[in-house]
């Protein structure tokens, strides 16, 4: 009997022939991702008796959650992390301004096919877009990896999602992700490994594909994986930090669950307050007033996302009384957007363009809403209080809908813009 991707990679990393769901294995990650929480993890590491980290080369550390620092307290935290990075001679460190950890990990060629990525961030599964096994863990667990180089993992059951056919005009992979989450619910893939298959996935660009594993965390998955293909290998050609061996699931692997979706049946969707699985067709929500539009985040802050928004905003102005915040996911995206002329389009339309990072996504800074305000966002989470105050509402949508809604001052389908 064949094995799923999760069973195969965890067997390889544990040095055994086969693993089965439910089994516990001890494995050493190839990448240990942490961000602004690195200083807090260091405190736990010291409590464990740690002095030098087990392997500085596996660390990938990013300052992105509140970057550049909004307060002295945040700045002190960054200062401690820079000191730690220097003291421990950690090679893969990305300071404020470089961008969001999940995006930069991919750009820097550190998210590699067939590798194991563990991160102290719940959206770590994002790296599965490159064919890695990537899962989120707690801070104490990360400290234990720093100390010992390994961690226990439970081999998960696997859900296979097959997507058939191409998306319709005006529909993006964000809508596909929301469609699946709306169908399966916020615990639909609880503790499971998710594999994305089918011509509907293969047809997507790398930027569009990334939305799928990024958002799988919102249905409780442990990791999310797309089989790496030529698109991935070409992208890594000049970027991969080391050689890698892709791992593919066996054709006769046993799946705990198989779900099939047809791209052509998917329409633009909105995740309504206050849960990501509260998904409704855009047509039902159209007309809802918005105070702020937010384009950015690890979910939809890449060049293609900015291109989609720029196409909508070109030659148009934001509605009076509606703000728009644009945050490129990385400095690389920012530069490319500048060269492509998108930044000029955003500024001409009246939008604000800010430095790469997580921005207001989890309420830290750079454009949090007021009490009673409504935000339409390209992010992945809309929990009550996520952007700062529990008395505001967040609607999640694709980048075109976010941009169009900023122009209309209300949630609107881009084709209905004047």
């Amino acid at each position, binding site marked *: 009997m064949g094995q799923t991707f999760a069973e195969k990679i965890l067997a390889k990393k544990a040095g055994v022939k086969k693993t089965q769901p439910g089994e516990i294995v*001890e494995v050493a990650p190839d990448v240990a991702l942490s961000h602004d929480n690195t200083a807090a993890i260091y405190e736990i590491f010291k409590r464990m008796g740690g002095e030098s980290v087990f392997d500085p080369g596996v660390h990938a550390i990013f300052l992105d959650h509140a970057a550049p620092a909004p307060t002295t307290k945040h700045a002190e935290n960054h200062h401690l992390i820079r000191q730690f990075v220097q003291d421990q001679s950690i090679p893969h460190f990305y300071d404020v301004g470089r961008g969001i950890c999940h995006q930069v990990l991919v750009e820097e060629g550190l998210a590699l096919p067939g590798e194991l990525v563990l991160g102290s961030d*719940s959206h770590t599964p994002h790296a599965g877009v490159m064919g890695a096994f990537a899962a989120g*863990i707690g801070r104490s667990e990360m*400290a234990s990896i720093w100390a010992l180089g390994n961690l226990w993992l439970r081999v998960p059951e696997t859900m296979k999602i097959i997507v058939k056919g191409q998306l319709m005009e005006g529909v993006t992979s964000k809508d596909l992700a929301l469609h699946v989450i709306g169908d399966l619910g916020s615990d639909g893939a609880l503790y499971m490994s998710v594999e994305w298959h089918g011509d509907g996935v293969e047809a997507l660009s790398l930027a569009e594909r990334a939305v799928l594993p990024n958002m799988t965390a919102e249905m*409780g998955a442990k990791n999310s994986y797309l089989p790496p293909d030529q698109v991935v290998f070409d992208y890594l050609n000049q970027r991969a930090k080391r050689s890698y061996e892709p791992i593919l699931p066996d054709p006769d692997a046993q799946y705990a669950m198989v779900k099939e979706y047809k791209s052509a049946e998917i329409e633009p969707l909105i995740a309504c307050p206050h849960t990501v699985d509260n998904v409704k067709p855009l047509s039902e929500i159209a007309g809802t007033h918005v105070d702020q539009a937010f384009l950015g985040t690890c979910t939809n802050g890449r060049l293609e996302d900015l291109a989609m928004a720029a196409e909508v905003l070109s030659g148009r102005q934001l509605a009076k009384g509606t703000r728009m915040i644009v945050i490129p996911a990385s400095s690389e995206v920012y530069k490319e957007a500048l060269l492509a002329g998108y930044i000029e389009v955003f500024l001409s339309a009246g939008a604000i363009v800010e430095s790469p990072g997580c921005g207001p996504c989890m309420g830290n800074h750079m454009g949090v809403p007021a009490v009673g305000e409504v935000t339409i966002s390209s992010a992945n989470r809309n929990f009550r209080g996520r952007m700062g105050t529990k008395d505001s509402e967040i609607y999640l949508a694709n980048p075109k809908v976010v941009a169009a809604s900023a122009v209309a001052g209300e949630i609107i389908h881009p084709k209905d813009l004047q």
Partner: protein
Amino acid sequence: MNANFVIKGRVWKYSDNVNTDVIFPGKYTYTVSDPAEMPQYALADLDPNFAEQVQPFDIIVAGTNWGCGSSREQAVTCLKESGLGAIVAKSFARIYYRNCLNAALPALISPDAVDAIQDGEIIEINLQRGEIHCAAGTFTFPPLPEMVMKIFDAGGLIPYTHQRLKTQKEGQKKG
């Protein structure tokens, strides 16, 4: 704690999809950092009686997806510090489940037991046998893996790593 440990206590029963924001509200995550101070905020936005009345070895019995939402470890620490003996649920959010086991707080999955157990009754859990004894009868759960029992025996992941690190360093000195 060892593998023979039997946990006996009063049941606090809750429903499905209880998230980490109501177990340990986000507004306290940066203002309360001492574990000893956390129990007073446990379940603050779900059941105000809990923090006042919980006794050592009491047991939470919950529906599906207990602990969904953020990865904050305080949502486990506040319960562990309050003396809670175990959580029995139909299912757990993944990171919450891992945080429980790493804090040496038994997180046990038994959907049938959850349906049968009543709020307020006294139940008994035998970790080694994988059994729950309650008024409605005896129910079973998959025993915890050996690896996890080692972490339990050490008192949690932090002391466990501390011990292993110490052993490794001593080994290096001798070698």
